C-alpha cells in the first residue's frame, strides 16, 4: 500500500479513501440550506482544480494568494496548490490596498484566487504594480459578465481545464501528490506584525500535521464533531483548524452563508468545538447583556438572580476552592431556568470545548461562559508554532493562566522572562527575511517576545509583551497589557491603552463600547449626536471613572491608574493604530496621541485640544479639531 500520509493533500486522499461519500467533509450555507460536500467530492474538486492549475502553468514551489470569506471553493484551491508542491498565501480580504499589495508582491504569488467581484476589482486596481501575478481566478461570477481580461478566469473553467488535462496525462495527479514530503512548504501566513510590515511565516506540512496531532492528543476530535469556519482565512487559527485538524480527525467544518448571518448559522449548526479570539467572546457577552437588559421584568429578575450565583460558582471552581452545597443546588436550578436556555440561545448547547486564544481574555468573560455551562478555556501560541503551544486541560482551567504545554511542545523562560518554545511544529523561518528569522529562531527555540512565568501547577502565565513591560521613572515594573485587560473587563470599555514608561505614575486612554454605552445612554434619556459627543459627555466620564476606580481596587497601589482620558475616536485598524486582531500598536499610538499623554501628566490640564486625522475606507483622509477632557481617579 502507499506510504503513510505526510502532507495535507495525502491526508485528504486518505480520508476520502476511508469515508468516500459516507460523511460530509465540509458544509456551506448557500441559497438558504446547508449544502454538503463529502470527502470524496472534496478530493475530486481539489484534484480537478489542481490539474487545472497545472494546465495553467502552476508548478512546484509556486505561491498562490487566496482572498475572500470562508468558502469550500477557496479551501480546495489552497489544498490543490499544496498537492502540486506549491503553497497558498491567504490574505485578509478587508485589509487596505497597501497591505494587500505588500503581501501578494512580497510572496511573489504567480496566481491570485478571489472570492468575488469586490476582491477582483482590488486586484485589477493594483495589477500593474504586481508583475509576478499571471492569472486571477474568481469563484462568484456576479457582476463580471463584461470583464474581458485575458488573465481573468472562472474557477469552474479551471476545473474544466483540469478534467481535460487529466485525460491527457492520467498519471500526473497521483505522481505529483506522491512527491509531497513533510518538509515541503505548506502555507505562508503573514502575521499582522505590531511593528513594520507583516512577516511571512513559512510553515511546512510536517509542522502543521505534528502540531495537529499534538493538539488532538490534548483535545480529541473525531468524525462526529462539527466546527465552524468564521475566522479570517489569513489567520493561523483558521488554517490550523480548517485544514490540518479536520484532515487528521475527519470532523466536519461548516462555512456560514454571509458575514451578517454568522451568529444565526453558528446556532443552526451547534458546533461541538470552536476556537475564537477574545473580541468574539466579548461581542457575544455584550450582545447577550444588551438583550438581557431589554427583557421583561420576570426574565431580567431571574437572570440577574442566577447569573451572579453561576459566576461565583465558576470563579470558585477556577480558583480550585470548594463550592457550598447550597450554591451548587441553586446553580442546578439555574441551569434549567436560565443557563440551559442561554446556552441554547447562543448556540453552545452541543459545545464540548470552547477555546479562546490570540490575546488575553478577561476573567468576567471566563466566569460568564463557564457559568452557563460552556467549557471555555485558554490556548496560548503563535503563528510561528502553528497556533497551539499551551492549552487548558478539562478540569484544570484556571483564571490567570493559559494552561500547560500540549504534548510534543517544550517551553522554557529566558533570563529576561521571555517565553521560548521548541516543537516539531515550529515554522521554517520568515519568507525572504533571514535577519528576522535569526532573531526569532535561535538554536531551535522560537523567541515569542512575550514575558511570562510558570505557576506552581506548571501552567504558563503570560504577563505582557517583553518590550512593553515598562518601568515607572522610579523603577517599579508594570505590565500595560495586564492593566488594559483588567480595564477591558468592564462592559463599557472597549479598548484601553495604559501608559507610564519613564513617568511618575500609570495613566490610561480609553475607548467606550458604543453599542453598550448607546443603550445605557438611551435608558437614561441622555441625548448624543455621535461617538465623540457621547465619549466627552460628563455622565460618561463619571461612569468610566467608577469603572476605573473599581479596577484600581484589584491592582497593587503602584500599578493603579491615577488619571484617564476618553479618546475622541475609536482606535481603528484602518488608521493603523491597532492590528487586524485588535492588538495595540503602542509605538504608533504614543506618537500620535502625544498631546493627550502630555496632558495626562500635567496636573493643571483638565482639557486638551486634539487634531484628529481620520482615514476613510477608500484611503481619503480629513482633519478635525476636538476637545478631550482629562480626569483624576479618586483614591488612586
Amino acid at each position, binding site marked *: 500500500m502507499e506510504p503513510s500520509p505526510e502532507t495535507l493533500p495525502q491526508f485528504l486522499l486518505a480520508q476520502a479513501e476511508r469515508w468516500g461519500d459516507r460523511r460530509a467533509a465540509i458544509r456551506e450555507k448557500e441559497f438558504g*440550506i*446547508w449544502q*454538503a460536500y463529502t470527502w470524496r467530492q472534496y478530493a475530486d474538486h481539489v484534484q480537478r482544480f489542481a490539474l487545472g492549475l497545472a494546465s495553467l502553468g502552476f508548478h512546484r514551489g509556486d505561491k498562490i494568494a487566496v482572498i475572500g470569506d470562508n468558502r469550500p471553493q477557496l479551501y480546495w484551491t489552497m489544498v490543490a496548490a499544496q498537492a502540486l508542491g506549491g503553497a497558498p498565501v491567504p490574505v485578509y480580504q478587508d485589509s487596505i490596498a497597501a497591505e494587500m499589495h505588500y503581501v501578494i508582491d512580497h510572496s511573489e504569488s504567480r496566481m491570485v484566487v478571489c472570492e468575488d467581484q469586490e476582491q477582483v476589482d482590488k486586484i485589477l486596481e493594483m495589477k500593474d504594480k504586481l508583475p509576478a501575478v499571471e492569472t486571477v481566478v474568481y469563484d462568484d461570477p456576479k457582476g463580471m459578465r463584461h470583464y474581458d481580461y485575458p488573465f481573468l478566469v472562472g474557477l469552474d473553467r479551471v476545473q474544466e481545464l483540469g478534467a481535460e488535462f487529466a485525460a491527457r496525462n492520467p498519471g500526473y495527479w497521483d505522481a505529483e501528490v506522491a512527491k509531497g514530503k513533510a518538509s515541503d512548504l505548506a502555507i505562508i501566513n503573514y502575521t499582522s506584525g505590531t511593528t513594520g510590515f507583516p512577516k511571512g511565516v513559512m510553515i511546512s506540512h510536517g509542522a502543521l500535521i505534528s502540531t495537529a496531532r499534538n493538539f488532538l492528543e490534548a483535545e480529541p476530535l473525531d468524525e462526529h464533531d462539527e466546527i465552524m469556519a468564521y475566522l479570517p482565512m489569513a489567520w493561523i487559527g483558521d488554517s490550523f483548524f480548517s485544514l490540518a485538524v479536520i484532515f487528521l480527525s475527519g470532523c466536519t467544518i461548516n462555512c456560514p452563508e454571509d458575514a451578517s448571518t454568522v451568529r444565526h448559522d453558528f446556532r443552526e449548526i451547534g458546533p461541538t468545538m470552536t476556537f475564537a479570539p477574545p473580541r468574539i467572546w466579548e461581542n457575544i457577552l455584550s450582545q447577550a447583556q444588551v438583550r438581557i437588559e431589554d427583557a*421583561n421584568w420576570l*426574565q431580567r429578575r431571574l437572570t440577574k438572580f442566577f447569573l451572579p450565583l453561576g459566576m461565583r460558582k465558576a470563579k470558585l471552581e477556577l480558583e480550585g476552592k470548594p463550592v457550598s452545597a447550597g450554591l451548587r443546588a441553586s446553580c442546578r436550578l439555574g441551569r434549567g431556568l*436560565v443557563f440551559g436556555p442561554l446556552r441554547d440561545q447562543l448556540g453552545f448547547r452541543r459545545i464540548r470545548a470552547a477555546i479562546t486564544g490570540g490575546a488575553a481574555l478577561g476573567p468576567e468573560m471566563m466566569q460568564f461562559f463557564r457559568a452557563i455551562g460552556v467549557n471555555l478555556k485558554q490556548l496560548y501560541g503563535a503563528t510561528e508554532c502553528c497556533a497551539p503551544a499551551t492549552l487548558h486541560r478539562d478540569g484544570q482551567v484556571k483564571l490567570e493562566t493559559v494552561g500547560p504545554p500540549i504534548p510534543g511542545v517544550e517551553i522554557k523562560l529566558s533570563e529576561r522572562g521571555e517565553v521560548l518554545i521548541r516543537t516539531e511544529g515550529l515554522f521554517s523561518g520568515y519568507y525572504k527575511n533571514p535577519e528576522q528569522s535569526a532573531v526569532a529562531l535561535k538554536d531551535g527555540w522560537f523567541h515569542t517576545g512575550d514575558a511570562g512565568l510558570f505557576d506552581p501547577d506548571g501552567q504558563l502565565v503570560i504577563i505582557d509583551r517583553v518590550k512593553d513591560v515598562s518601568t515607572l521613572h522610579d523603577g517599579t515594573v508594570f505590565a500595560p497589557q495586564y492593566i488594559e485587560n483588567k480595564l477591558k473587563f468592564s462592559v463599557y470599555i472597549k479598548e484601553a491603552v495604559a501608559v507610564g514608561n519613564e513617568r511618575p505614575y500609570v495613566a490610561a486612554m480609553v475607548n467606550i463600547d458604543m453599542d453598550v454605552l448607546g443603550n445605557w445612554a438611551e435608558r437614561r434619556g441622555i441625548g448624543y449626536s455621535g461617538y465623540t459627543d457621547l465619549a466627552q459627555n460628563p455622565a460618561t466620564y463619571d461612569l468610566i471613572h467608577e469603572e476605573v476606580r473599581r479596577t484600581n481596587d484589584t491592582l497593587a497601589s503602584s500599578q493603579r491608574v491615577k488619571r484617564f482620558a476618553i479618546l475622541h475616536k475609536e482606535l481603528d485598524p484602518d488608521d493603523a493604530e491597532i492590528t487586524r486582531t485588535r492588538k495595540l500598536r503602542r509605538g504608533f499610538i504614543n506618537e500620535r496621541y502625544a498631546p493627550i499623554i502630555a496632558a495626562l501628566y500635567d496636573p493643571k490640564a483638565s482639557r486638551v485640544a486634539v487634531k484628529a486625522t481620520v482615514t476613510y475606507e477608500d484611503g481619503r483622509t480629513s482633519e478635525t479639531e476636538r476637545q478631550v477632557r482629562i480626569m483624576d481617579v479618586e483614591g488612586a
Partner: protein
Amino acid sequence: MIYRETGQFKTTYAADQAIFPIVQDRFVVLLAAAAAFVVPPLVAGEYWLQAILIPFLVYALAALGLNILTGYAGQISLGTGGFMAVGAYSAFKLSTAFPWLNIVAVFLLSGVIAALVGIVFGIPSLRIKGFYLAVATLASQFFLIWLFNKVPWFVNYASSGTITAPGRRVLGVMVTGPNATAAARYVVALAFVAVFALVAKNLVRGRVGRAWMAIRDRDIAAEIIGVRPLRTKLLAFAISSFYCGIAGAELVFLFLGSAETQAFDINQSFLVLFMVIIGGLGSVLGSFLGAAFIIVVPIFLTNLPHMVGLDVSVALLKQIELMVFGGLILFFLVVEPHGLARLWQIGKEKLRLWPFPH
C-alpha cells in the same frame, strides 16, 4: 424555555419548509394527534363526547372553512350558515336516495355541492369588496334558508319539515343514525377535521395560499404579478363552502341527529365568524382555538351558577351568554386583533427566545 433549537440545521428545502420544522413541535403535535384518537373514545363520558367534543370538531371544520375565505383570502362572509345547510340537506337527500352509498362519500359529495353553490354566490366578489361583499353573502344566507324551508322536495315531503340522519355503517361500525355510539361519531368527526386541517395547511403554505394572501394584503400588487383575482377568490369561496358543507352534514349526521333550517340561520353564521375572529384570522390553529373557546364558554357559563350554588333562570343565563360573547369580541379586538392564535404564537415565541426578549 423548553425549546433546544441549536443544531437543528436544514440540508434540504423540503425540511426547511416543513409544517413543523422544529423537532420539539413535531413530537408534541404527533403525540397530541395520537392521543386525540385514542383517549377520548375510551375515557371521555357520553356527556363530554356529545356536548363538548363532537360539536367542537364539527364547528372547527366550519371555522377552518371560513378562515380560508376571510382569514387567508380576505373576503368577508356572513353566509356560513347557508352553506352548512346546503351540505346538510344534500347529505340527507343523497343518503336517502342512494342508501347503498358510503356515508364518507355522501359527506364528500355534499361538500362538493356546497362548493358549487359557494362559487355561484362568490361571483359578485369580483366587483365588490368589503361591506358590500358581506351583503352579498347575507343574500345567500337568507335565500338558501328560505329555499330549504319552502321546497318540500328537500325534506322528502316530510310534514314536520325536519331532516333526520339515517343509520349508516363505516367499516362495520354504526356511525350515524339513532344507535350510533358517541365514540364512533367522535372518531369520524376527528378523522375528517384532521385530514382537512392538513389539506388546509398544505394549501395555505403553497402556491394557492400565497395567491390568497396576496389578494388579501394588496390586491393591486397581486394582480400585477399574475394573480387572477376572480379565479383566486372563487377558489377560496369553493373550498370554504366545501368545508362548511361537510361541517353542515356532520352537524346533522354526527351531532344533532335531526334538524330543520332554524339550525342553520344567521346566528350560525355569526357564531362561526366569532370563532374565526377570536381564534385568529389567517391561522389554521386559530380556527381550532376559536371553535374550542366558543363551544366551551357557554357550557362553562351554564354550569358556573350551579357550581357556585346560586340558581339563575335560564333566560338570564341566555342574556349573560350574549353579553359575555359581545364583551369578549370587543375585548379581543382591542387587546389582540389577531386573536388567540396570535397570543399562542407570542407565548410560543417567548418560550423559544427565553431568556431573551428578541
